[in-house]
């Protein structure tokens, strides 16, 4: 805290934000893109993105040569805090920054890193994830999408599903089958340009009415061999490492959502409360307290665990806890608003009321995607607790 270098850095960030962060963007983090919408292309947002990217602060921990700022964890924490204090936000997010970027840093060739990382960092290229298939959900290694080696390229054919944001993505990182005689060792990790001939994307309409996920079809898609990450048949362990980054980012995003409207304020709007603002229904009050306490506990725990790098499966615990919190908050909100939160559209309901139902429905996904709660429990049981058996 009292480290003079950190104090100076914070002052530098503060001053920079005063000069570069447009006041009209204060608190508008959704413009960086959400599950339902791609990043905004408003000129003021693009200018903000370019300014942050020029400092390397969209991916502050990455090396400078790949578009990062090479900052240590403590400086990154200070940067986040100064941004939050100013109502500023990182204009570049998504799977490029949270998932494929860190994976390429770890496993990519120099050429792959030089080609892809700077464009992830400046937000000009967006990525989607080609993992699940209709017949390969929790049993991901059952995937069948084939990639045949044909000299200098692979020929890819098959179907992926739940490819979030595929309709806006420029590139896809995919697990493909390069050998059907072995289950795990027959899987390879490929980078696929979504503009290649033979790629077709179809959004899937969800119960929430939105379409954040897609079906993606590959028909004889030519992918250069240079786009193979890691060795042929070595994709499984790389793909699993990437899932650790994914779990971490799902867990982290549950903290960010927490900053939204206080549940007690919503309760006061729709439910009886006394003159001092105390919620009248004891059970609701207790439920909100339970939620806030669990959220505070998870905040403290996730920070403590982040320093403990010898426990990789802690990501599974964090994913489950974070997902449960996101879901619980949505449950409480729909309970508080009752019928007022169950509008399906039109102007009889306020926009934030319509959002309650959409959010409640969408959050059903968080305990399924990124490895279901049950899959994460299997991972914790095996990798951390050392329990045996063939639990699936």
């Amino acid at each position, binding site marked *: 805290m009292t480290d003079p270098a950190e104090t100076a850095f914070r002052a530098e960030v503060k001053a920079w934000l005063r000069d570069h962060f447009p006041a009209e963007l204060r608190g508008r983090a959704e413009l960086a893109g959400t599950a339902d919408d791609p990043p905004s292309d408003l000129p003021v947002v693009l200018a903000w993105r370019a300014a942050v990217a020029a400092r390397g602060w969209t991916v502050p921990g990455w090396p400078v040569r790949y578009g990062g700022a090479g900052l240590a964890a403590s400086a990154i924490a200070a940067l986040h805090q100064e941004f939050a204090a100013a109502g500023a936000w990182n204009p570049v997010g998504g799977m490029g920054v949270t998932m494929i970027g860190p994976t390429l840093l770890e496993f990519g060739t120099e050429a792959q890193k030089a080609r892809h990382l700077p464009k992830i960092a400046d937000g000009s290229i967006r990525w989607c994830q080609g993992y699940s298939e209709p017949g390969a959900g929790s049993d991901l290694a059952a995937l069948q999408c084939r990639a045949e080696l044909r000299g200098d390229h692979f020929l890819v054919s098959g179907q992926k599903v739940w490819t979030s944001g595929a309709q806006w993505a420029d590139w896809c990182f995919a697990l493909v089958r390069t050998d059907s005689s072995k289950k795990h060792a027959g899987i390879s990790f490929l980078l696929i340009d979504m503009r290649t001939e033979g790629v077709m994307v179809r959004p899937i309409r969800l119960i929430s009415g939105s379409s954040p996920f897609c079906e993606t079809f590959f028909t004889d898609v030519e992918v250069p061999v240079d786009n193979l990450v890691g060795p042929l048949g070595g994709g499984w362990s790389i793909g699993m490492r990437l899932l650790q980054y994914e779990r971490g980012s799902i867990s982290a995003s549950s903290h960010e959502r927490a900053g939204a409207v206080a549940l007690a304020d919503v309760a006061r709007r729709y439910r009886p409360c006394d003159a001092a603002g105390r919620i009248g229904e004891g059970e609701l009050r207790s439920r909100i307290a339970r939620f806030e*306490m669990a959220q505070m506990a998870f905040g*403290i725990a996730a920070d*403590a665990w982040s320093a403990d790098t010898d426990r990789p499966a802690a990501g599974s615990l964090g994913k489950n806890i974070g997902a449960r919190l996101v879901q619980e908050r949505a449950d409480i909100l729909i309970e508080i608003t009752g019928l007022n939160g169950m509008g399906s559209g039109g102007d009889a309901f306020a926009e934030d009321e319509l959002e309650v139902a959409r959010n409640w429905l969408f959050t059903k996904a968080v305990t399924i995607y990124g490895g279901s709660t049950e899959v994460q429990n*299997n991972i914790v049981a095996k990798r951390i607790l050392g*329990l*045996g058996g063939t639990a699936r």
Partner: protein
Amino acid sequence: MTGVQVATGEGRPGADAVTLADMVRQWAARESPVAAFRARRDAGVSAVVDRASLAALADLGWTGIAVPEAHGGSGLGFEAAGMTLLELGRNLTISPLASIACAAWAIDRGGSPAQRDRWLPPIAAGGTSAALAVAQAPGQLDDGEIVATRQADGWRLDGTRRFVADGDGAGLFLISADCGEDSALFLVPGMTDGLVVRSRAMLDSLSHADIVLEGVALPDEAKLGGADLVDALRDRACVLASAEMLGIAEEGFARTLDYLKTRVQFGEPIGNFQALQHRAVALFEAVEMLRPVVVAALKAMDGTEPPDGDMARLRASLAKAAAGDTLHLLGREMIQMHGGIGMTDEHDAGLFAKRGAVLEAMWGNAAFHRDRFATLRGY
């Protein structure tokens, strides 16, 4: 919104506390394992403080953890005291260290120089043990009433306090009493006329005594402070109880996990079965979350002075509620996963469940602290 934000590193213990915890862990495993607790119970010893073990704890320096160096202690504070109780809790080691640390802290904060000189050195040296006859959970638990009446030359205390841990044989009591509209904290030596201690056998094989006061006459300076000090003391007691509960939770879980790996049914360890694996993960998750939450609360106690702000109060209530919920789950799951053997007196599972249940009810249970959390948060 004060106190809701999480600060970087608040749930990570400092290096000194970790070193101390390692030392305590080794000592307790060697000198005071669960078997010692069981032997003591079997012998019918329920009064907490025995001179020999207090002297042993003093030799290790642990009675002086909350006593400033100038008065013969180490002045390490609540983080260190909590890590010590955590490791002792792992072995169900019975000690009055939580009461002693809280009492020393209150005397240091509220006492006159003469009172500090009189009481802190013998506390640190293990010659005097202390107990907190403080209302544990106002509004939830009726643990008696004590009224303080102003006299020409001091105070007069009358009333009863029930469930006073470490009260049997304590050389010193810190007593909360109603004095007019507010509560106040009084320092009362154990040998004072009109003070009677009655044992009360509890589920954890210990006595949580009843203290009866009849016309106890005290000098002016016996009043150490008002409601702010009482509240702050209660939170420190509650956080140290949470630390002991964490030790019980970690050890109870470790033993349960070990059983899942060794008990064979249907030709394989029962831990191979997914139904039990997922229950074990749920328990593990609760225990893993509890450690940083307790550490954050301990550090919050060291980081503030009465009157405590909302940040420290929220951390204290969070820790006690989480510890209560976790031990409740542990008490159920540890016995369930052990099956019939866990129901026998011969097995240690029952000892963990019973000590856990008593700690859960002390200093306000989880419901009490959730209610307090909501009130502090303004809803």
